[in-house]
Structures are given as structure tokens and as C-alpha cells.
């Protein structure tokens, strides 16, 4: 399903001539649609193209370039947006909840401790279904450490938010634009978190193909509120609710996630047709799944790194495949099971831990394996916490260990 050239194929096509590679890069830089940008800038660019009407954001805890880049765009008049420089992440989410219910498209961004400080209102937005889009730069939690892992976003996997995990800056941009359409679909109507690994994506420049405003406008129509605070039609939002009311609301949220599961691939397809690249899959498959001895499942950049492992192991005559869920909520259960059924072994790599148990991804996959009585040799590994470097050789070593163990 992955159409991109592997590192090895690229090298072959270029005849290992680095001058050609440089020339290609210069050409692509001259192309106005392709830019060199960090993940943070990709987020900001996607936000700008999506025309949010109100942005509220706090720049620190820890700082990313997203908020600064967007404030610059607003200040220069490149965006027609009300920008609220709030005094904390808690207030950032408070402001976008208010702005969304007042009938505008909203956006904020955060990271790590900022997400945790926002926590109460992250749940508020999830439970009361506020269609805000929020990229989260995944970084480790305390003690202070600004390097990547997924502990921050995993803490909120249950909060009623759709969660994407991007593998590169291009996907960051594409998923962020898609996120608005998904959040605001009237059969979904819930917040979306676009997760991108700290530093590896947020602070590292890579080529990103930027769609034209016209194309994005054609994909993403203006915000259409489902319900709006309006003096001509008063109603109360979030008022005191009894058990039956809460039950009804939670059941509707579960339905919303079921709808999202069906609609997200359709919206990805529409994006691919109108803008390009993305593909309609919830799980990216890299490698020959039909003949693989082991499948690696990992999120975000760990998944991308594992793609290199597949090539690396081929040289050693080991066949591996990567299954990278880029949509984590709704959890793509049935898609995963179809894929896992094709492989004899599974290695799940988590970049976060549910302390006292195991990695969250591993726990959730195990539950599905049990539910569907899937016979597969299951292995799990926690890697890369606090930004510990994980390269394709490290992953290969784990796969080799797995193959040796059984």
C-alpha cells in the first residue's frame, strides 16, 4: 500500500550519485509547491490552509514553533483569524471550546506537560464533542525532558478524541488538513489530535509538498456549526445532567467513534483525490505481508524507522513487514486483525508505558488477538522512552531476537 520509493530503490535509481540527489533536491526546492519545513511549520502551514477562524494557544510547556509561526502569519495578515494569546494551556482549550460553540472553526496546539495541564478541558472537549483540531508534539513527561515519546498523548487515548500518529512532516500536513474535515463532519463532530514526534518531526526539516489554497478550499468547506450559542435561540450547553443523560451522551459518543471509523477512510480518499498522496488506509503496510516471518507494529516515526528495518533485514534474507496504525482512535481493530492473520509472529513496539502493565499499543492488540482467537506468536518491546534513540538496526535486532526465541 506504500507507494513511496524505499531508501534502497532511491539509491539505485540515482545510481548512487550524490550529485544527482542534490540536483533533485534543488529542483524540488525551486518548485513552489514543495518546501523544506519542520514538522512544526508543516502543522502551521496546514492550519493556515484550513482557515481556522479562532486560534487560542500557549507557546510553552514545552515550546514548539507552531504557535510562533501561526502568530506571525496572523500578524502579517496572511490569515483572517482571531488569535488569542492565552496565559496557559488550560485557557487555550477553554477559549477554543467557547469559540467553537460560538460558531467558528478552531485550532490549538500543545505538547507534553502543556497537554497534561490542559487535561481537564481536553476531557471537556472530548465529552461535550467540540470539533477542535489540535496537533500534539509528543514529548516525554517529567522530570523535565524535551525529547520524544508518546506518554503525553497516550494519557489521553480515552478522552473522546480521535488520534492520528504521523510518520513524517508530509503526513503531518496532510493529516492536519484532513483532521478539520473529520472533526467537523456532522456524523462525527468530535475533536482530533494529530500526534507528531517531538524533535524527530517537530524540529527537523524535510521536504513537504504544500497544496494550493484553492485545492484545500475545494476539499474543506467553511465551518458549519451543528449547534451554536445564539441569543435568538437560547440553549444551555454542558448543564447539570443526571445518570441517564450522561449514559445517553456516552452512547452517542461511542456511535460517533463508530461513524468515524467508517468515514475516516472515505475522507482520506477524498483528500487523496482532490489533493493527493495520502491514501485511504488506517494502517500503513510496508513490506511483503504474504511472506513475512514477523510483523512489526509501531506508531509514528518508530513505524517509519521500521520501514528501513524491512529493507535492512531483506539483505540478511529475513522477511519482515511493518504495520503502522496512523489512526489510533478509533482503534482500527478489524483492519489490524485481517493483517495480523497473515503473519506468524508479531512484535509490538511502544514508545509509552501504562505503568504497572505494558505498552498501550501492545495491551490493545493483545485484547483483539484474544477476542478473535488469532494464533500468532506475540512479542512486545518498549523502546525510545524519553527520546532514547531507536534506529532501524535496533529494531532489526529485536526482530532477530523474536525469530530466535521461538
Amino acid at each position, binding site marked *: 500500500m506504500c507507494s513511496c520509493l524505499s531508501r534502497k530503490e532511491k539509491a539505485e535509481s540515482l545510481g548512487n550519485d550524490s550529485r544527482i540527489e542534490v540536483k533533485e533536491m534543488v529542483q524540488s526546492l525551486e518548485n513552489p509547491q514543495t518546501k523544506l519545513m519542520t514538522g512544526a511549520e508543516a502543522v502551521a502551514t496546514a492550519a493556515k490552509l484550513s482557515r481556522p477562524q479562532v486560534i487560542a494557544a500557549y507557546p510553552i510547556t514545552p515550546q514548539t514553533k507552531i504557535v510562533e509561526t501561526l502568530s506571525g502569519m496572523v500578524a502579517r495578515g496572511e490569515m483572517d*483569524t482571531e488569535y488569542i494569546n*492565552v496565559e496557559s494551556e488550560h*485557557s487555550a482549550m477553554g477559549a477554543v471550546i*467557547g469559540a467553537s*460553540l460560538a460558531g467558528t472553526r478552531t485550532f490549538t496546539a500543545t505538547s507534553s506537560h502543556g497537554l497534561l495541564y490542559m487535561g481537564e478541558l481536553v476531557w471537556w472537549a472530548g465529552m461535550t464533542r467540540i470539533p477542535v483540531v489540535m496537533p500534539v508534539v509528543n514529548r516525554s513527561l517529567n522530570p523535565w525532558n524535551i525529547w520524544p515519546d508518546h506518554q503525553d498523548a497516550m494519557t489521553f487515548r480515552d478522552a473522546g478524541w480521535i488520534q492520528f500518529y504521523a510518520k513524517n512532516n508530509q503526513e503531518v500536513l496532510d493529516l492536519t488538513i484532513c483532521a478539520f474535515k473529520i472533526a467537523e463532519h456532522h456524523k462525527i463532530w468530535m475533536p482530533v489530535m494529530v500526534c507528531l514526534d517531538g524533535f524527530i518531526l517537530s524540529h527537523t526539516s524535510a521536504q513537504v509538498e504544500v497544496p494550493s489554497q484553492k485545492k484545500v478550499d475545494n476539499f474543506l468547506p467553511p465551518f458549519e456549526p451543528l449547534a451554536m*450559542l445564539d441569543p435568538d435561540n437560547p440553549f444551555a450547553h454542558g448543564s447539570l445532567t*443526571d445518570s441517564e443523560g450522561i449514559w445517553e451522551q456516552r452512547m452517542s459518543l461511542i456511535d460517533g467513534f463508530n461513524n468515524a471509523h467508517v468515514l475516516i477512510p472515505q475522507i482520506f480518499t477524498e483528500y487523496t483525490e482532490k489533493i493527493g498522496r495520502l491514501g485511504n488506509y488506517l494502517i500503513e503496510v510496508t513490506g511483503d505481508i504474504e511472506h513475512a516471518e514477523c510483523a512489526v507494529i509501531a506508531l509514528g516515526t518508530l513505524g517509519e524507522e521500521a520501514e528501513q528495518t524491512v529493507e535492512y533485514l531483506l539483505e540478511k534474507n529475513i522477511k519482515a513487514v511493518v504495520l503502522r496504525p496512523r489512526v489510533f482512535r478509533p482503534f482500527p481493530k478489524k483492519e489490524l486483525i485481517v493483517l495480523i492473520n497473515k503473519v506468524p509472529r508479531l512484535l509490538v513496539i511502544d514508545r509509552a508505558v501504562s505503568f504497572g502493565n505494558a505498552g498501550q499499543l501492545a495491551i490493545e492488540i493483545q485484547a483483539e488477538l484474544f477476542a478473535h482467537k488469532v494464533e500468532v506468536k506475540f512479542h512486545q518491546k518498549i523502546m525510545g522512552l524519553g527520546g532514547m534513540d531507536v534506529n532501524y538496526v535496533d529494531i532489526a535486532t529485536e526482530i532477530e531476537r523474536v525469530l530466535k526465541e521461538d
Partner: protein
Amino acid sequence: MKAKITEMMERPNVLLRGNFACAGCGLSIAYRTSISALDRPIVVIPACCSSVIQSLHPNVAFNVPTLNIAFAAHASAASGIARAKKMRGEEVTTVVWSGDGGTYDIGLATWSGAAERNENIIHFCYDNNFYSNTGAQRSGATPRGAVTTTTPEGKKEKRKSITRIMAAHDIPYIATASIGYPRDLYAKVKKASTIEGYRFILIDAPCPTGWLSDPAITPELGELAVKTGYFPLYEIENGNLIFSRKGEKYRDPENRVPLEEYLSKQNRFKKMTPSQIVEVKKDIQHEWDQLVRLE
């Protein structure tokens, strides 16, 4: 600015029957008087008595668009509404309607940020001196000597001066008002609604349930708070303090009704010793002295 009785009688009915307020509820009077003075209000309510008394979903007794939000998110949510409506080109009055716990304590950062940004919001704090909807726990607004469920022997510290903290933000309009003087309150709300930017109105709202007072004398307690000097009435416009006509004479301690008359009508003060009463009188005078400096 003076409120006409006829105008007040013709105001819209913002508080419907079927609300859950206790008998003699001060905040209901404050809400009805204040919100009915506004043009096209959208009201943000954090956790407080007002989030409880507006009735149970799907019923609602507050007859204006209402957003209930987390305790410390009132002014941020209101900022979002105000900016969104500006972006949509809709004329509304964005309101924060918070209790003293939400304003003096847990929501202080969120309103301070909104006040510093001078968001176009009217922030009302109905002050009943404690956390009322959860059964009378101590807040930063609880006066010295008052018994609450978390200060069973009476609070040891004086209450915070929220208006002076607010004044340090140099916002365009601040007022104090009391449900004992509804015309004064109404007029101040009307005046606030003609001003742009962050505006703050602190309303003394007696709570018979928590103050352990007779529900029939709620307005009287409001008046007594002013007449004893306990709750001064004033406005601060662009940094200049003006004492309100109704309460100005109580700046002179000679003109004040003895504090004991106010305290004795509320059982929350029954554990106060004579020396504590002297301390509270000093607290009151200290506040007046500080206010006079802002004149």
C-alpha cells in the same frame, strides 16, 4: 446613571420558574437583575451554585444562551466566544457569571489573562463568601471569623480584596454592587454594557443556606453589609475610584451601623469572640483606607 423602575419592570424574564435555588437565594436576585439589563447576552458559567440551580438537563431555567464550563475556564471560554462572535460579525454581550470561589481562587489565572488582554467581556462575581453549591466550604472571599465546613472554628484570615487585584489590571470598568440595592446594581450593569473591554462587577449575594440566616431577610442583609461598611459600594473607571451615592456616607465610621447588628443575624458568625470582632472591624477599615487611596 440611574435605573428607572419602569424600565426594570419591563425587562425580559431571564430566570424562569423551576430553577433549583434555595429560599431566599441572593444569587437569583443578582442574576435576574444583572442579566436582564444586558442586550443579547451569552453567559459562561463555571462550577458554582448557578451551574446547579439552572435545573437539570434537558430543562433549563436560565433563559439566555448558557455555556457551562470547568471551574477555572470561565474567562477563557468567554474570550473564545467574544472573539468568535466578533469574527462572525454578531453583536452579543459576552458574560462571565461566576461565584467567589471561581473568581477569588481557582479561576484567578484565567480571568487575569483575559483582563490583561482586555477581552470584551463583562465578568460578574456573585460573592456569597464561600463555596456554596457544595455545602459551604471556605474560599478566599470568606471573611475572618466565619464558620464554614472547612473552617469549623471560624476562618483565621481576612478575606481577599478581589476588586483591588482586578484594579491592578487597569481594566476600563470595575464596580461593586449589592442585591440590597437592585436599582444601583441594574444601573451599574447598564453602564458597564456601554463600555468596551474587560469589565468586572462584584455583587454581594447573601446565602441564607450557608450563612445560617433567615431566608426572609436576604435583601436586608445586603443592605446591612453596606450600612456597616462591610461591603463598600463604588466604581473604578479607568483607575479612578468613585464611591456610590448609596454607600458613600459609610466611609465615615461614625455613620456606620454597628457591625454586630450584621453579624448577629447570621449564625456563621456565632463562634466569634469580641476580639475577633475587633479584628474584622480593623479589616473593614483597612479596606476603606486602601480604597480611598484609589479615589
